[in-house]
Every structure is written in structure tokens, then in C-alpha cells.
């Protein structure tokens, strides 16, 4: 049996803060729908559905990162590279909604907290890192692979700090530890989980970029044009 996924359960964060983040998640997703609609064409409809289904599948695969501690891919970086940040955040949100409603994984009351951390923060951080790295790294065959690994590590760590903020605002139990200690504990395990996520993301996007570069948002929209490469190299 796979372990329960890395989603916040009901009751960990109090209801007011859960409601606040439900509003933030809805506002963020509204923006994603407005912006994502412009990038959506007929060919991308099944591709975006596949990205969501694939992230659901890989989220079932918990891997061990420390003795007694596991983790799984969150998918923000993968989604951002394949279908862009707006449609990508919607993909991850769809996975989180399916998990909470059908698999009872992640609290229904906590859905806004989880969407904010994993779909909004995770995808935004992953996208910004990939976009920056593809601009500054030399343009080689391995560029997208390296960018995927680094962006995944940062994305998962940023998402984990979203929980720290939510716990600071509305944690139901005072565990008597400093916020810094909790932030460090979350960052430590999630750095390792992010490395695992980086390997899976890099393998997947490198393969898709090889066989169907036209279906990879980062290749279509982010790689510098070959013309400018000839000038700089």
C-alpha cells in the first residue's frame, strides 16, 4: 500500500486559515484559467489531461529519502515544463481535487492549503527557475535536464515552506518548537524529496522533448532562438 500522500489533512491548520487559503487558491486558479485559456489549443487539450493523469500516477510512488521517511513527486515543475505555468497549475490542482474527493488523500477542508502550496507555489517556483535557467545556461543537449533537476529541488522546498507559513498562521497544536526548527525540518526532508522529483521530472521531460519537442512548452516558448545562439557561442 502506498503511504498517504504529502497532503495536509483536516484539522492540522485551523478553519479560518484554511478558508483564507481556499480564497487565495481560488483567486490564483482564476488567474490561471484566464491566462491559460490563451495558451490552450485543440492539440493541448488531451496533452494537459495526460499531464494531470501522469502526475496522479507518479504521486502514488513514494520513495524513501531517510530511514523511516518517504516522499513523492509533487509535479509542479513537470507540469510547468510540459504545458506552461498556468495550465500546469490547473493540472496539479485537478490531481489534488481528485485525491481529496475520491481517495480521501488530503483534507477536503484543507484543499485550499494544498492547492496553494503544491499547485500554485510549487508550479510558480518551478516555472520561474526553469525559465531563468534556460536563459542563463549554455544551450546544450543537457540544458533542459539540468534545469529540470534544479527547478524541482527548489519547487518542492518552496512548497514545503508554504505549509510552514500556514502552520505559523493557524497551526492547531502548539508543538513547542520554534518556527525556524519546523522550517528547517520541512526544508531538509523536502530537499531530498525534491532531488527524487528532479530525477523523475528530468527523465520524463528529456524523453518528451526528444520524441515530441512540439508538445513541450519550455521548448516551444522558452529556449532562446538558434539565431541568437550562433551570435553568442
Amino acid at each position, binding site marked *: *500500500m*502506498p*503511504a498517504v*500522500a*504529502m497532503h495536509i*489533512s*483536516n*484539522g*492540522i491548520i485551523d478553519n479560518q486559515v484554511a478558508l483564507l487559503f481556499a480564497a487565495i487558491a481560488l483567486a490564483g486558479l482564476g488567474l490561471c*484559467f484566464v491566462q491559460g*485559456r*490563451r495558451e*490552450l*489549443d*485543440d492539440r*493541448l*487539450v*488531451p*496533452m*494537459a*489531461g*495526460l499531464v*494531470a*493523469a*501522469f502526475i*496522479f*500516477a507518479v504521486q*502514488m*510512488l*513514494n*520513495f*524513501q529519502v531517510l530511514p*523511516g*521517511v*518517504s516522499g513523492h513527486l509533487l509535479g509542479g515543475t513537470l507540469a510547468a515544463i510540459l504545458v506552461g505555468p498556468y495550465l500546469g497549475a*490547473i*493540472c496539479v490542482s485537478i*490531481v489534488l*481535487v*481528485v*485525491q481529496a474527493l*475520491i*481517495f*480521501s*488523500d488530503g*483534507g*477536503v477542508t484543507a484543499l485550499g492549503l494544498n492547492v496553494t502550496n503544491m499547485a500554485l507555489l510549487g508550479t510558480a517556483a518551478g516555472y520561474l527557475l526553469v525559465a531563468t535557467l534556460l536563459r542563463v545556461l549554455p544551450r546544450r543537449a543537457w540544458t533542459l535536464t539540468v534545469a529540470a533537476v534544479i527547478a524541482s529541488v527548489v519547487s518542492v522546498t518552496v512548497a*514545503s515552506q508554504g505549509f510552514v507559513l500556514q*502552520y505559523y498562521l493557524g*497551526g*492547531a*497544536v*502548539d508543538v513547542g518548537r520554534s518556527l525556524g526548527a519546523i522550517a528547517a*525540518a*520541512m526544508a531538509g*526532508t523536502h530537499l*531530498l*524529496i525534491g532531488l527524487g522529483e528532479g530525477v523523475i521530472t528530468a527523465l520524463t521531460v528529456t524523453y518528451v522533448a526528444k*520524441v*515530441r519537442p512540439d508538445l513541450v512548452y519550455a521548448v516551444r516558448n522558452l529556449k532562446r532562438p538558434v539565431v541568437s545562439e550562433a551570435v553568442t557561442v
Partner: protein
Amino acid sequence: MKKSTWFILSGLIAALLLAGVVSNFASSHPDGLDSVAREGCTFDADDNITGGTCMAQSEAENQTKDSPLAGYGLRGVGNDVLSTGLSGVIGVVATFAIGGGVFWLLRAGTRDRTKQNA
């Protein structure tokens, strides 16, 4: 069949294999968030809190805890491997259907608007 259709089909088959088969080899240790939430408490063999102070103490029941697929197992299927695998297959199909539906509707809305403006 179109090249894109083949790509989507192969991607779906890969997702079905991961969720339906490979999922049985997943680690069942508490994950990164769980392990932080459990820190400070002691647990018995059934994962009930037996003492201490930790975030997990305030965990409340989920509204969907009685779902036939709760906890990534299909209720009524005694074999663990089959139960996990079937739940994964259903999850992949459901996510693809719901995701595809959401993006199809979003696309359909855009098309209507373009038509009106034209």
C-alpha cells in the same frame, strides 16, 4: 491514427502501469510532511497516538473518508496488490477524464468567444 493520438495513448499506458503495478512497490513510510507532523508523539502499531505533543494530534476526520477508494484501495477487494493496482488504474482514468473535460470546456469557451468576435 494521428501521431499525437499515439503519444497520448502511450503516455496513458505508462501512467496506468505506474499507478496499477509499480505503485505496489512504493514506500509505506510516513512522508516528509507526515514525519514532521508526527514528530513529538509516540504511536502504537495501529498508528494511534499514545503520548506526546505533535501537529498530528489535531488531525480531524476527512469528509470523504468513506469513499470506496479511500486510502488508495478499492473497497471489497481483499487482495492488497489488486486493490492498490485497481485504485491506481481508476485514479488515472478519472484524472484524465476530469482533466480532459476541464481543458476541453476551457477550450470550447475560447472558441465560442472567438466566433462571436469574428
